[in-house]
């Protein structure tokens, strides 16, 4: 299973994402200016400050040449995981619903949070148990998930909210404690917490690996068919 990890000018978590992906498969860096996914089975849009996050977070990056390929890949059913800034980019690209607003505290937050797996029935969470708690760090200033109320109702009824902050753990004011959502087709997923920073016992938690293992299992099943 081959992961492609996008690198924009201003990305800073692409190497951790690459190393995390390499724990479960192969991984390559995809340069933002190249319209080439190098045959990746799954694409990760990583954290950081793409194009300086000028104008709005993720607003410029969504027009990067590589993103045209990522959008096409997503339309064809390819798995795309957006982490933090990658989540923001995928929302700006309209590959995911909603938007990320500044944290209600207006402060940068950097800490471990407890998440609850709301729906394990997705390519990104299938290795988790329903309601399982994951300990994964967040580090962001613009992570307050927003969507209009009817859209939030729809996301919940369609089971697109895959991860929530556990009760009392919501660090940024995200509506309905939403930490991660997928698209209607369930092949594009974005989350603010950083699973790639929770893969080694050295840093306290390996719960983030479950997302990478889920992707690997899903792709392996598809290849086997």
């Amino acid at each position, binding site marked *: 299973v081959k992961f492609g990890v996008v690198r924009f000018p201003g990305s800073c978590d692409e190497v951790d994402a690459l190393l995390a992906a390499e724990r479960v498969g192969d991984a390559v860096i995809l340069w933002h200016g190249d319209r080439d996914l190098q045959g990746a089975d799954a694409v990760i849009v990583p954290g950081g400050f793409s194009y300086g996050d000028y104008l709005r977070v993720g607003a410029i990056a969504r027009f990067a040449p590589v993103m045209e390929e990522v959008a096409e890949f997503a339309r064809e059913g390819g798995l795309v995981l957006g982490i933090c800034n990658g989540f923001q980019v995928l929302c700006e690209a309209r590959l995911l619903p909603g*938007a990320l607003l500044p944290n209600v505290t207006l402060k940068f937050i950097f800490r471990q949070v407890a998440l609850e797996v709301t729906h394990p029935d997705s390519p990104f969470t299938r290795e988790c148990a329903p309601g399982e708690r994951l300990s994964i760090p967040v580090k962001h200033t613009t992570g307050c998930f927003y969507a*209009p109320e009817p859209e939030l109702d729809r996301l919940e009824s369609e089971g697109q909210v895959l991860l929530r902050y556990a009760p009392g753990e919501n660090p940024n004011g995200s509506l309905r404690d939403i930490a991660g959502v997928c698209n209607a087709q369930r092949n594009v997923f974005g989350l603010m917490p950083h699973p790639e920073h929770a893969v080694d016992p050295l840093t306290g938690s390996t719960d983030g690996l479950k997302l990478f293992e889920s992707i690997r299992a899903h792709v392996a099943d598809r290849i086997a068919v």
Partner: protein
Amino acid sequence: VRARVLVKPKAGILDPQGQAVERALPALGFTGVRNVHVGRLIELDVEDLDRLPEMCERLLTNPLIEDYEIAGLEPAVGPDSK
């Protein structure tokens, strides 16, 4: 022409920056201030004003969370204002 695009948080959307400013003003003795919202001003010279709304909707704003208005039309500053 030179145009100004005023961008502000959509009505009803949480605006923590506006709230922070609203809380800070009374601390300086400025009372009676309400409904503070913090947005962004984008100034630009455009050759084809008809295309400005499309620019606003595709890049300059995120229509899901922001409203905009086009204001302050005047002659362009020059070919390359820095």
